[in-house]
């Protein structure tokens, strides 16, 4: 009898952490707009991930007999000035966005931002001072100009490096596969992705390091990495999630802007920014005529971009309300 009651109480003790996330999820689901937004985001991302399966054409397939067509059964969104299928290109453009946002977020925000933020907040002292000053210098520049500068100066070096790699290893197609583009964009977006996250985590850790349970852990001789990742990090997860959901929209937009300028993803690989740029942009003979005569070509890529950013904003807002009720 006594044993049963003991196991009962231990079960109730174990449940709170699970209940925490479950109740957040329940509160989140009650926000209809945010929930719909999340579904739309998931849908768009799935479209991108399954682009190779869903495509109706090859994204490079040029058909000069079928240019600038409206939507039809053959080309669902019509064709562009080179007769390429817009539906397929939008799918692959989404895939580019998915790859860039996910990789920059894992490397930049989550890996660099969180680790540096944890260290700066926990150790303080000169490490903190240097990190904060570097961050201040980086954030002194307007984001887009800094990204342009980085992309413009880094790209030739990266391409050179990839060519050398191709020559020395005998693997061909590194440059043409678009990996270099992703690397360049990832590096160019780093300053944008890590500093905000770092500052957020640092601020939280500054408070948490004084908490009694951290002091207790320290007194028990727990190793510093364990304190940082097992005791402090779980308590910073909510603000991190909120910040990620706000930041992903900005990262996605930056890639699109960079490709729009012709500095991001290089043709023939499609990107939503590149597709918009081809219709609106400065270069190319008669580009103004495309936008004058066929503005409908803009609709598909732009609606996707707009939905992504709008939905991420809504989701971020809702998560902020749900996860930090005190911050209101």
């Amino acid at each position, binding site marked *: 009898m006594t044993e049963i009651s003991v196991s009962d109480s231990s079960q109730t003790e174990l449940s709170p952490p699970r209940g925490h996330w479950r109740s957040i999820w329940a509160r989140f689901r009650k926000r209809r707009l945010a929930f719909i937004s999340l579904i739309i985001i998931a849908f768009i991302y799935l479209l991108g991930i399954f682009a190779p399966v869903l495509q109706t054409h090859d994204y490079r397939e040029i058909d000069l007999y079928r240019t600038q067509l409206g939507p039809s059964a053959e080309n669902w969104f019509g064709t562009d000035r080179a007769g390429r299928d817009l539906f397929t290109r939008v799918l692959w453009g989404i895939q580019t966005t998915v790859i860039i946002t996910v990789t920059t977020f894992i490397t930049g925000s989550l890996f660099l931002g969180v680790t540096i933020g944890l260290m700066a907040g926990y150790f303080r002292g000169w490490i903190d001072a240097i990190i904060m000053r570097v961050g201040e210098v980086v954030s002194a520049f307007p984001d*887009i100009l800094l990204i342009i*500068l980085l992309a413009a100066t880094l790209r030739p070096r990266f391409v050179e490096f990839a060519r050398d790699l191709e020559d020395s290893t005998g693997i061909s197609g590194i440059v043409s596969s678009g990996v270099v583009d992703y690397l360049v964009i990832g590096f160019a977006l780093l300053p944008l992705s890590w500093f905000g996250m770092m500052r957020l985590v640092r601020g939280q850790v500054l408070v948490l390091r004084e908490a009694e349970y951290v002091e207790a852990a320290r007194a028990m001789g727990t190793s510093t990495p364990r304190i940082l990742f097992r005791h402090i990090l779980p308590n910073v997860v909510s603000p991190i999630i909120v910040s990620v959901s706000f930041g992903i929209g900005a990262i996605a937009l930056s890639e699109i802007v960079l490709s729009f300028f012709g500095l991001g993803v290089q043709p023939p690989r499609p990107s939503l920014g590149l597709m918009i740029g081809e*219709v609106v942009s400065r270069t190319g003979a008669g580009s103004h005529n495309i936008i004058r005569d066929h503005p409908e070509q803009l609709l598909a890529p732009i609606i996707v971009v707009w939905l992504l950013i709008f939905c991420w904003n809504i989701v971020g807002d809702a998560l902020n309300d749900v996860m930090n009720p005190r911050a209101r």
Partner: protein
Amino acid sequence: MLEYILRRLLWTPILLALAAFFVFMMGTCAPGDPAELTLGQFATPDLVAKQRIRLGLDDPFPIRYIRYIGGVVKGDFGDSYHFTGKTVLEVIGPKLWVSVQLNIAALLVATIVGLPLGFYAAKRQGTATDPLIVIVMLILFAVPVFFTAPFLILFFAVKLHWVDAAGWNGFFSIQTILPAMTLGIPGAAIFVRHMRASTLEVIGQEYVRTAQAKGMPNMVVNYRHIARNALLPILTIMGFTIAGMFGGSLIIELIYGIPGAGRASLDAVFQRDFPILTALVLLSAVMLVLANLIIDIAYTIVDPRIKLR
């Protein structure tokens, strides 16, 4: 407070020197040999070697950096590679000025639209108007500028012929309206959001209730007690908004064919004219840092409650 301002003033030049270091470093990583680029088609190995000495390219990095900083302080950013015989400042000066004007116009739009609307939304809390304003502004905020710009051009320039589709005719011309609107509306959305939040906070304060309870006219309470206090936090957001707008103006300049810093920086990338690009990046950083400094100092003066360490 004086100490805080002094410390900020002392830190600013160091910050800018570090920023210049970063930009200079990126500039030296840039592709292409400056000596070859300046000589153009006349480059022979012999001439290139001479040019390298003349431009001081063979000196060690720290010396070149100090020379660069020394020049920058005097307003000398070096010579353009592409426009031979012109200094960087001669090339980008007018373009930067156009961008600044465009940004001021956009900031005016954002302030005039955003602040009253945010205030109004907060006053209407609990009615359908408030969420309506919030949602509409959120939708407008998420619309990328390369969506609004082409369609505004199509409608107002191509269909209605009210304005020319592209170009820049100075601050006080109707041509400024479209780009300023395109750039200003997303900014207005940010202002609405924050103005609404800060107004709501002030409305709940006790002194507002007291003012209303003692029968002060609504106009006076709205203006003197609520709006003026709610405006304070907006000042800090101003800095971020200016930074964001400056980025947006690059795209808008391209679409509207405005000869500003955005176009210049992209041309510089494609012409490999890196002194121009680095100078533009550095100058915009200087402007941003100074704008933030002024805002911070203004904040301490406007709000007597703030005693910064």
